[in-house]
């Protein structure tokens, strides 16, 4: 088994042949036949493997393909499993710790090829007096290429030392010698170097709102900044959503679109409403055309849990429902792709970007446009927060569900505002408050989602009945509806307790302390 590899880049005055000549004068080596291999680095679109502390590399060597998890830090060793082809998710891996780690990191996301490294490698084996190999030196010429092959080029020559277990001394001796020659050991992995080659870097996409706002900046300027960042996210996800690589592309696209609408209406008084109007409508339309596909994504993602919630005997009866969902999903996806390919969508996105990139007018007649953003943020968050408290206190055990739905909408507005302006507040405090709000929001979300799902499954049942579904399947779906309504009741019962926590004195003080300043 291999120990942790030590990598070096060559100094400017030394190339691989020069280094080799130098070493051969002083040591005895045996040379293995040169090898060529291709390494394909994989991660999800939003870098989940990287965030879990690893790099995933698929390599074809001799007839054997293998997938390796390369830990990014520490001296843990690479872990590899044999696989005939690069996997799209953890499923093809043999059962074990590695499979669970990858599945846990990815969840519903798929692995995409990010960059390819073509490696030409010569292996020198350092021999001791018994002609036993005690250290391997790999002289590597590496080329990088983007997965579509459009960007490619040469990387700097690398020397890798592969220590052999039980032979520490020769390793130390050679390291000292390389230091003297001016070789620098590198921390940047081959993956990172190759990414730089194709003009990317780790974590160059995230659906999170990653920016730092200037508290003194004009509110209209800041609002455009936030909206531009949301537009970047939206656009980054269009291709993946159209190709249906995994359900998160569409999800992130929709969240970015919803946040944009919320920003337009909640960052009040900064833009001329007449200018915003067509975009407001446009984003509502995006919500509409992507909704049916997202709904089907949700049902398909939830399907395993649906099935497992039923008694064992009924589970197989549910299979036709799964097939039905698949067909519906396909239809919805096709319809959505047509809309996303339409000139209307393209024009909307293009004109929105143009408008956002136009500089704001020097003088604005909008009431909040020239204010520093920190003041507007405080005011807006405080106002919506107060509304949430007021509406929440009006919810009684016998209140109609609409009350809770309205409260949920306000909570969402509050959450989005807090997230837009997160960087204006001390990190630990704002994060903690978002977390507490989220607990309430999750409960309200459950309450509504269970009801929506129960109703929808009822409609699906009617449709399937007309298409000739069996009684057994409809009974299983009926049991499912019953279960969902039961869960909805449970969420309703838990609401009072969760809202009381949100409305606690300590929580109110925390909100007032952070946002009540102006």
């Amino acid at each position, binding site marked *: *088994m*291999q120990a942790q590899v030590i990598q070096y880049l060559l100094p400017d005055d030394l190339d691989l042949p020069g280094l080799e000549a130098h070493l051969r004068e002083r040591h005895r080596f045996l040379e293995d036949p040169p090898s060529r291999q291709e390494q394909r680095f994989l991660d999800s679109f939003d870098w989940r493997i990287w965030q879990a502390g690893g790099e995933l590399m698929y390599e074809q*060597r*001799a007839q*054997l393909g*293998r997938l390796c998890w390369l830990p990014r830090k520490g001296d843990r060793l690479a872990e*590899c499993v*044999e696989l005939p082809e690069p996997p799209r998710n953890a499923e093809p891996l043999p059962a074990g*710790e590695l499979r669970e780690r990858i599945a846990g990191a990815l969840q519903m996301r798929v692995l995409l090829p990010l960059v390819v490294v073509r490696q030409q490698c010569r292996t020198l*084996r350092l021999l001791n007096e*018994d*002609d*036993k*190999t005690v250290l391997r030196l790999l002289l590597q010429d590496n080329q990088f290429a983007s997965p579509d092959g459009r960007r490619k080029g040469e990387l700097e020559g690398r020397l890798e030392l592969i220590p*052999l*277990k*039980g*032979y520490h001394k020769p390793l130390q001796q050679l390291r000292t010698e390389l230091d003297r020659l001016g070789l620098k050991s590198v921390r940047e992995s081959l993956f990172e170097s190759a990414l730089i080659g194709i003009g990317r870097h780790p974590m160059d996409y995230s659906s999170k709102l990653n920016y730092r706002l200037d508290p003194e900046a004009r509110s209209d300027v800041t609002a455009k900044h936030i909206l531009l960042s949301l537009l970047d996210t939206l656009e980054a996800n269009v291709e993946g959503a159209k190709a249906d690589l995994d359900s998160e592309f569409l999800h992130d696209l929709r969240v970015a679109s919803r946040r944009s609408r919320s920003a337009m209406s909640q960052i009040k008084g900064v833009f001329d409403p007449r200018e915003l109007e067509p975009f407001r409508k446009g984003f509502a339309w995006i919500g509409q055309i992507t909704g049916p596909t997202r709904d089907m994504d949700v049902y398909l993602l939830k399907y395993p849990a649906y099935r497992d919630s039923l008694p064992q005997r009924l589970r197989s009866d549910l299979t036709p429902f799964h097939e039905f969902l698949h067909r519906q999903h396909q239809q919805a996806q096709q319809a959505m792709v047509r809309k996303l390919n339409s000139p209307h969508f393209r024009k909307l996105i293009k004109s929105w970007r143009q408008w956002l990139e136009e500089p704001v007018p020097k003088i604005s007649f909008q009431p909040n446009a020239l204010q520093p953003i920190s003041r507007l943020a405080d005011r807006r968050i405080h106002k919506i927060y107060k509304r949430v408290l007021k509406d929440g206190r009006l919810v009684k055990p016998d209140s109609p569900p609409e009350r809770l739905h309205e409260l949920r909408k306000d909570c969402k507005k509050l959450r989005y505002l807090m997230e837009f302006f997160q960087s204006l507040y001390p990190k630990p405090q704002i994060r903690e408050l978002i977390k507490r709000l989220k607990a309430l929001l999750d409960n309200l979300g459950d309450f509504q989602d269970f009801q929506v799902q129960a109703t929808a499954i009822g409609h699906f049942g009617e449709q399937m009945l007309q298409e000739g579904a069996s009684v057994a399947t409809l009974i299983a779906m009926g049991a499912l509806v019953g279960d969902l309504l039961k869960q909805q009741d449970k969420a309703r019962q838990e609401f009072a307790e969760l809202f009381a926590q949100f409305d606690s004195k300590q929580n109110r003080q925390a909100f007032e302390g952070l946002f009540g300043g102006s």
Partner: protein
Amino acid sequence: MHILGVYNIKGGVGKTATAVNLAYLAARQGYRTIVWDLDPQGAATYYFRIKAKVKGGGKALVKGKLDLDSLVKATDFENLDMLPADFSYRNMDLKLEDAKKPTKQLLRLLRPLSQAYDYVILDCPPSISLVSENIFRAADGLLLPLIPTTLSLRTYQQLLDFLEGHRISGLQLMPFFSMVDRRKRMHLDVMQSLPDTRKELLNVAIPYASDVEKMGIHRMPVGEFAPKGPAWQAYEALWREVQERLA
């Protein structure tokens, strides 16, 4: 992790050659493999050009003062490591007797290696002892090279009796003929008579070949210096059959 023992009560039956060549084949397929040379003669260790020495020896191992990982030496081949032999293993039986659960010590020692290796191949000392009982209890499969003679068959029967007497089950026995000399009448007779009664017998037989003896000169597996010869072809076929059995 598969644990495979290579064993015979008798010595000089091609046991070490089997362990070394099969381990090399496993590693070449990409499986992380380790050979543990439990035979104090250290032939497997010698074949891999490694110096036989375990600091503190078998005694420290059994007492739990040493962990196996610190003793591992890499061989010249990728994915193939070795736990070298130590002359002090000759007293291993005595040390085992002092330990708690003396028949399960080996399994305890091997457990931490299960993450790091796909195959552990044990080159066993030729005898029936506490060490071999430990091996029988730790291994999933036991490869038994048999020279096709009546005496060999007797020792095989002795082993079966021992396993039955000690209630060792779940161990996949894989006897196969080794050092087969097709010019010898007796070899042919024994080989013809046995397969009917012994269903566990592997189909592949390893011929008596000078290539195998030359391992001591080249100090490497046969596949490295005579990959075209009949001996190597036989080892390749044997490994395929063993993998099928284990699957």
